[in-house]
């Protein structure tokens, strides 16, 4: 008869910090790199240059509509066959980056659309030029607007990073797969991993909400 027992898997708890570390590392690298990539994509999509706008749109549609897992297989198995050997860690990061950039660029684009044209005109009439208008007037306002949707996006990337387990990167989901199949304590390892994911997501949500509040008060 089966009896639920966390004690049965407590010998694997020592591996948790490293596994959580890998999950956070994957998510953090993917978030930073994808956001950096998303800004020019969003800019291109809003630009009057048709080819750039079309290319950006194609990128977004393509990477939003392919499952992350399949993307990972393309990078890890497909590219290896074409002669480009990525390590499992970087294949997972690349899948997360290319996918997250599509979503982030849409968030950024929506953010830009809320900034009235008058802000640019006002900045120019104050004597700001070229990129100064963007960097000191428009972008800070965009950042402020996109914090709430970006919080959800961060959680999405964190959850998405679990694909890495499929190719054995050693993240939190991988800990669950390994612990489950070694101890046959599938339910226990699932619940422990799930609880940690929920806690991590809540932590991100709380941090982003605090950032949002601070920004709102700063804006007066």
């Amino acid at each position: 008869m089966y009896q639920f027992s966390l004690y049965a898997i407590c010998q694997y708890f020592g591996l948790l910090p490293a596994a959580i570390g890998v999950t956070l590392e994957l998510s953090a690298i993917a978030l930073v790199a994808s956001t950096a990539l998303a800004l020019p994509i969003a800019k291109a999509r809003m630009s009057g240059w048709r080819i750039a706008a079309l290319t950006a749109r194609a990128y977004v549609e393509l990477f939003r509509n392919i499952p992350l897992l399949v993307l990972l297989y393309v990078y890890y198995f497909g590219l290896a066959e074409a002669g480009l050997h990525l390590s499992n860690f970087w294949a997972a990061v690349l899948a997360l980056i290319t996918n997250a950039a599509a979503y982030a660029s849409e968030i950024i684009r929506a953010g830009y659309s809320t900034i009235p044209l008058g802000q640019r005109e006002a900045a120019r009439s104050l004597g700001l030029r070229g990129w100064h208008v963007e960097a000191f007037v428009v972008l800070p306002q965009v950042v402020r607007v996109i914090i709430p949707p970006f919080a959800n996006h961060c959680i999405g990337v964190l959850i998405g990073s679990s694909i890495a387990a499929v190719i054995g990167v050693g993240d939190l989901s991988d800990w669950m797969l390994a612990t489950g199949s070694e101890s046959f304590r599938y339910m226990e390892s699932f619940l422990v991993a799930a609880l940690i994911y929920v806690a991590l997501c809540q932590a991100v949500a709380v941090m982003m909400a605090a950032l949002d509040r601070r920004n709102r008060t700063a804006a007066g």
Partner: protein
Amino acid sequence: MFTRGNVWEYWPVFLHGLVLTVELSLIALAAGFVLGMAVGLARTYGPGPVRLLCTGFTETFRSIPPLLLFFGAFYGLTYATGLALSPFQASVIAMTLEASAFISEVVRAAFRSVDRGQWNAAQALGLRFWAALWTVIGPQAIRVLIPPTIGVYVAVLKDSSFASIVGLVELTRAGLLVRETVGDSLTVFLLLSGIYFAINFAISSGALALEARFRFAH
């Protein structure tokens, strides 16, 4: 080295997988819609404790990666309860939970978007809560609800690829099997990407068109 066959010869395998993927995601969406509607309505109109419980449900299942849900539903439930769930049944459970969390958010947003005055008007006409919800508020919320629900369907369809880890031969697993036989990884996975893209792009384009139509109908 193994001999390399032609990926295209295996089109019936892909087709079979595709049918299963669509079947699985449609069942999960339907079941998730019912559960998500209940949770979403309880979160919007229920008493305090129920609201808290439903918020907990949504937040929990939104925060657990689909990979874990499939694992938990298949291996976890099988070992813990002794139920011999088939990969298909386990996948339906996992995806229903995920879909219902997303849909409960959509439902809540849709019902809250209906103007407060509509409730007052319904009350003034002598309608009770359920009658008002069914005849006045519901029909208005449904229009707002449909486009994002289609968005949820695309997400569910994409996440159904994780059913491959519990051994269900849906589209992704079909691709993995063909890859094992033929060995042409790049073609197989690019083909998979193409199929998923074509379906999802068609669905989301349809959703956009629908959204535009609803906007004009107002």
